[in-house]
């Protein structure tokens, strides 16, 4: 436990130091990749430990972001901490309800339920444009955290931007909590259900309950990421609920080697920097390069980034179905 705390503190110190030297643009990108890795960490629990592939995390991300946007626009909440808590609460509640529906299904049916849910959210966001702003999206003003610190801007020491500071702080706390979750009985029950559901049932584990908890936790993380995204980006649009965004999250999880939360942390940084600079240098053809990389990774290195390292050190061929 102490070791985990040290690990998180070291990561926090590195991120903090980086904030003093990096330009605002790099800080923005890094913040965004931390948000992506929050969602992907939820997927690590769901896919890596639970074996359930959710193509709907984008919906929870969007629910988090839109809770902030709509609460700001219609109810005039001006405190960032209240918005954050409410946004996360709403998302967690909805992910719990969807978990109730989805946890009875497995494999492709589960993926399909999550796709269906995220598409429902997407179409509602697009079609109820008089409320949600439709495809134009919503603008998020820079509200203040605890009444002093605006969620965007540069009121801190040196080049550190406020949004970066807030995001790395929350990210580190979540990292610490997730380490505990991964070493908790829940996580072991999840692994047992994934490997042998019948055996797990005979040991008194309820697969449905375990899956609901895992799904809710993943939704909770996506909700935090979504609310912070609203603060970070100042503008949100329904495209974040489209199934392709969820596909990106799943890809990052695979790239990070599905069971390693530090793997997905690196993978999301790599992915977002790659994507951003590809857009800068190739304009229209970034998808081609990303797709090509995914395909090569799947065909040649199926265990993801941490798998490549693993392979180099141990030299074992793993992760084949038969």
């Amino acid at each position, binding site marked *: 436990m102490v070791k985990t705390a040290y690990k998180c503190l070291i990561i926090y110190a590195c991120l903090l130091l980086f904030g003093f030297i990096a330009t605002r643009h790099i800080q923005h990108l890094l913040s965004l990749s931390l948000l992506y890795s929050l969602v992907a960490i939820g997927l690590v629990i769901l*896919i890596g430990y639970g074996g359930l*592939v959710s*193509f709907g995390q984008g919906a929870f991300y969007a629910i988090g972001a839109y809770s902030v946007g709509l609460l700001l626009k219609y109810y005039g909440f001006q405190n960032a901490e209240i918005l954050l808590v409410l946004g996360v609460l709403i998302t967690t509640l909805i992910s719990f309800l969807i978990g109730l*529906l989805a946890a*009875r*299904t497995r*494999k*492709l*049916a589960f*993926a*399909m*339920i999550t*796709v*269906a*849910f995220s*598409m*429902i959210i997407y*179409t*509602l966001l697009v*079609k*109820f444009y008089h409320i949600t702003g439709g495809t134009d999206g919503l603008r998020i003003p820079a509200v203040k955290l605890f009444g002093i610190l605006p969620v965007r801007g540069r009121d801190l020491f040196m080049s550190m931007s406020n949004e970066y500071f807030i995001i790395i702080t929350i990210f580190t706390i979540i990292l610490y909590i997730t380490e505990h979750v991964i070493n908790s009985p829940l996580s072991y029950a999840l692994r047992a259900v994934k490997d042998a559901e019948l055996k797990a049932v005979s040991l008194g584990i309820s697969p449905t309950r375990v899956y609901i908890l895992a799904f809710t936790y993943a939704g909770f993380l996506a909700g935090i990421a979504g609310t912070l995204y609203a603060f970070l980006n100042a503008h949100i649009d329904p495209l974040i609920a*489209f*199934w*392709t965004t969820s*596909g990106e999250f*799943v*890809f990052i999880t*695979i790239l990070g080697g599905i069971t390693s939360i530090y793997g997905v942390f690196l993978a999301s940084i790599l992915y977002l920097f790659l994507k951003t600079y590809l857009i800068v240098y190739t304009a*229209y*053809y*970034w*998808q*081609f390069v*990303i*797709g*090509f990389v*995914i*395909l090569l990774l*799947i*065909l040649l290195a*199926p265990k993801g980034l941490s798998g490549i390292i693993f392979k180099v050190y141990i030299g074992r061929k793993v*992760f*084949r*179905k*038969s």
Partner: protein
Amino acid sequence: MLEITLLIIIFLNTLIYSVILALISVGLNMVLGVLKILNLSHGVLLAIGAYLSVTFVRSFLSFGLPIYTTYIALGLAGIIAGIFMGFTVEPIILRRIYERVEIQQLLATFALMLILEDVIKFIWGPQSWMITEPYLYLGNLNIGGISYPLYYVFLMVVGYVILLITYIFLNATKIGRIIRSTAFDREISLALGVDVKRVYTYAFTIGATLATLGGALIAPTISLHPGFSSEYIVLSFAVVVVGGLGDIKGAFIASLIMALARTITVMVFPELELAIIFIIMLLVLQLRPEGLFKGGR
């Protein structure tokens, strides 16, 4: 009188929308049934069919051929695109991932979707394309005072003919029966001497051709822009789920149900136009995860 007109229009809209859904999802379901892969790039095949038909129609017209030949151009574009994609994508990429776990298959086809979308942008550019000549040439139909584009009726008839041909092909020809038996049990078909590899290629090509033909048929009715197909693919997921995974007949009936639900929702509560399809999908996954029609067989 007005009620009858309204009913006719609901009926027509349902049939037209269902034929588009059916062309995509029957193909998707066939690939899923035979190859056991959920092909996320299936929607892009539709887009490729649509874009290629733009090129064909444009070049037919620029050669000075009369406008009625553009219908041949549409058909040619659909078939050529489908056969080309079928015989390249399956042997080069899909064949390598049959043994992999589900999530890798999904991700590989997702990657394929991204690649093909940018190939489209590379060939046809990022701007949007329209070919209205085949659409305008047929003019309008007068239904009780409301003018209705005749092209939609044409689309519907041709679409159903294509689906009928596919049905006959799968049920009455030898290769069709082999494809169905491979979908039913791969091992036993292999033991009986079926060249499963070739059957996979054929099944994928037929599925792809259905999608590209669908794309060619809808090309004159919409403005094509990059990424327009990613909505169709999730719609066909919904249809496939409701009809039952791998069940071709189920996919056809499900597309009728979905189209009817959508047409009625458009009239009653237009905001839920697309959401209704996914709500039905969610309900079916909850109540009958194996699809609506699995019990009856």
